[in-house]
């Protein structure tokens, strides 16, 4: 099976070509405006994996795995705008935070982080108050345990979304946003040496993502604006498949990320 990173790269390249192709041709350079932005924020991250039935040597279940962490995030992006269309590229990374796993007489402290990148092609509708958009995203959560366990949860694929907003008191724009993603997921778990053998996991899966949130944008000056977002991202991994697994796979794996962030944009 092709490595998910290669697949992600191919998808990113294809979607970039697609978006460039869809963008109107023969543009005058001055018709396109470029809006770089950078942001910082806080994400409340949680991961849940249901018990693996009968996966322990005595036939009992390997317990559920649950991580919660508050991550500091920072990111940057570039939006190119032409008339009603925009093309956005963004990248976000997080600080490394800790949580622990306890279950079945095992205890391990984990350090983990999360990074996301996406490309989005959108079109303004309804006199610029609404937006419909499609794009590609890739998100990856990594965890490293002090007992040698390595965890990676990655999802990538295409998404579609809509947004609508209102001008409030001539000072800012309040918008709501919802998007759905049809993703491919990959979960890698390499337990440390103290765990029973056979618990290794390298499963591909179907995954769905749901994003919803609210944003407020306003101008600081003619060229500089700020943006405040509160977003929720939920990912559900279904139909895990691992041809090399010798033990049962978890029935349910979920990630939830609640993020608050503030961005600064500059109009060239």
């Amino acid at each position: 099976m092709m490595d998910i990173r290669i697949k992600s790269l191919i998808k990113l390249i294809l979607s970039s070509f697609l978006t460039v192709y869809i963008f109107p041709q023969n543009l005058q350079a001055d018709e396109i405006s470029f809006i770089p932005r950078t942001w910082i924020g806080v994400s409340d991250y949680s991961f849940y994996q249901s018990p693996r039935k009968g996966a322990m040597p005595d036939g009992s279940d390997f317990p559920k795995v649950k991580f919660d962490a508050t991550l500091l995030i920072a990111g940057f992006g570039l939006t190119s705008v032409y008339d009603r269309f925009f093309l956005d590229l963004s990248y976000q990374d997080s600080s490394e935070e800790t949580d622990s796993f306890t279950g079945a007489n095992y205890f391990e402290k984990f350090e983990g982080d999360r990074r996301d990148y996406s490309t989005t092609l959108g079109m303004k509708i309804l006199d610029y108050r609404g937006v419909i958009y499609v794009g590609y995203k890739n998100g990856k959560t990594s965890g490293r345990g002090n007992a040698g366990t390595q965890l990676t949860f990655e999802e990538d694929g295409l998404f579609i979304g809509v947004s609508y907003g209102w001008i409030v008191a001539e000072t800012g724009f309040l918008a709501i946003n919802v998007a759905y993603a049809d993703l491919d997921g990959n979960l890698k778990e390499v337990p440390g040496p103290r765990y029973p053998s056979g618990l290794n996991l390298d499963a591909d899966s179907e995954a769905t993502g749901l994003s919803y949130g609210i944003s407020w944008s306003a101008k600081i000056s003619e060229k500089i604006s700020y943006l405040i977002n509160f977003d929720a991202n939920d990912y559900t991994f279904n139909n895990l498949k691992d041809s090399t697994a010798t033990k049962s796979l978890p029935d349910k794996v979920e990630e939830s990320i609640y993020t608050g962030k503030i961005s600064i944009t500059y109009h060239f």
Partner: protein
Amino acid sequence: MQTIFKIIFLMSFLFFLGQVSAEDNVKHFLKLNKDGIKVYYYNHKNFNLGTFKAITYINTSLASTLAVMFDNESYPDWIHACTKSFVIKEISFNERYHYQILNMPFPFTDRDFIFHSILKQNPTTKAITIILTSISDYCNDKQSSQCNEVKKSNLVRVIKSIGTYKLEPYDKVLKITWVQHTDPTGNIPNWLVNQFIVDTPYWTLKNLAQKVKEYKYSKLIYDNDGFAVTLIARKQKPVKKAKDFDHFPTF
């Protein structure tokens, strides 16, 4: 002697302008026809400068348009690539000098202009023609605060530039005809000059059509002979639209 040279120079420009205008129907060809703006490019044998003619119709009044054109601080909002402008000296309602900076793409140095503008009127049709002529050394022997600021400039001063805005009111529509001849001074590649010849009139007139809305309550006062003598410029705060805010959602 200097004055004589200036007069000769100005007359030469006006002569060339007359030549170009006289041959409008023969020597120009359409470069752009978009959003109700037509931009013509001149290939004039006697005038080897960046030259264009642009025509558009704007749903506005003569007073609103003049109010925008008299408000030099607003120039960066609507004149393509203009980053700054201010009045150096206002002689009368019909005559003034102003300064203007034109942003050039890297690695070229920005250009600046000193324009002398003369406003001519047809009291019958109410049409107004504004003739702009660059007087690059206007400030050299003057000591006003405006001239002192101009003298501090280390940009490339454009020496040869002349243009006309003809504003013709028809019922509720204003026809604007803009002819401009500019030698950008110094080494500027032809491709850049050609780009400016199209971009400058298109974006300027497109922006102007929006900008005049902010001045829609402006009013011209005419004397008994039908000549405009005073402009009451009434600028209102632009109404914010959804387009003015950053709203680019993603997953």
